[in-house]
């Protein structure tokens, strides 16, 4: 039986995105958890911590978003 790789391209892309989302998921959890700890320790620094937290989440999330774009590219091509 000759395997037809074309038929499962979309499914492979989906699995790839799922694998790619693991790392950023863990990373965002760490960033948000530590930001909450920091806010609980120093509530007066809340504004600065929140800004830094979103910046950290944005950088971490970039990997998942690249995976999302590659999913579209891979499943279309």
């Amino acid at each position, binding site marked *: 039986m000759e395997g037809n790789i074309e038929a499962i391209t979309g499914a492979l892309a989906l699995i790839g995105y799922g694998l790619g989302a693991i790392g950023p998921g863990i990373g965002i959890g760490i960033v948000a958890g530590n930001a909450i700890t920091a806010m609980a320790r120093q509530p007066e620094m809340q*504004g*600065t911590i929140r*800004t830094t937290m*979103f910046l950290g989440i944005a950088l971490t*999330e*970039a990997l998942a*978003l*690249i995976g*999302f*774009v590659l999913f579209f590219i891979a499943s279309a091509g």
Partner: protein
Amino acid sequence: MGSGFYFERQRKGAQLATMIVASECDVANEVICAPADVNELFEFPTIFTIGNFEVTRTEILMIFAAIVVLALLYFGLRQQRLVPSKFGVAVEGIVGFVRDGIGRDVIGPESTKYLPYLLAMFTFLLVGNLFEITPLINFPITSRMAIPAFLSLVTYWIFMILGFSRNHFRYLIDTAWPKTVPIGLRWLVGLIELVSVFLLRPLTLAVRLFANMVAGHLMLTLLLTSGVIFVAAIPDIGAKGAVGFFWFGLGLFMFLLEVLVAVLQAYIFTLLTAIYIESSIHFEH
């Protein structure tokens, strides 16, 4: 035939006028009605043409969103009274949130110069995202890549111009060759920073909003329309159709969650714009 979707127009009462329904869903065998082609949910037929410019529902909604934003700001801030009306307080709350929470906290005292851009972006994205859950519209205009991509390119343009005009060519060189990093790691950090600042920032800024809105719209359409179809099919398929209540209930829960996502994504887009502008102005640290 073919697409599996059709626009259900002008049904008696027209409650579902703009909702897209999976017409060929085989409710007897499928547990959830998946669309045959996802693009059908996001691409609308051309309504009319001006020159070579094809106007679709998305563009009409985009102009409508701009009108809503203008009307909101105009009527909210028209009269400066000592005791403003309730509507005026709400609009002033939005303006104050962007000025203090995003502009002043992130950029600093210089932020008044960029406040019009940040405020316009935040309100437009807020209205555009909330279209997702507005009855009879039910389509987030930001789930078409053109709008987030354009806004993100404008942001990219602003912080690039600012970076190069404030720091001249040092902006590029210090990003690629950071002096504060130990020499052994400097090339690696520089490479990551270079790719991150000049390529990934605009890409991720646009894709983040786009992906969230696409996911939300797909989930709402699938769950709510599946629910409606299954419940409507109870006379044909019997008790199995009761799964529709579950899908519909889950859809309503997601509906509430999407309110949060819409507001949060508008906030994050604006906040990151402010952070990028700040990083170009105060480049040294």
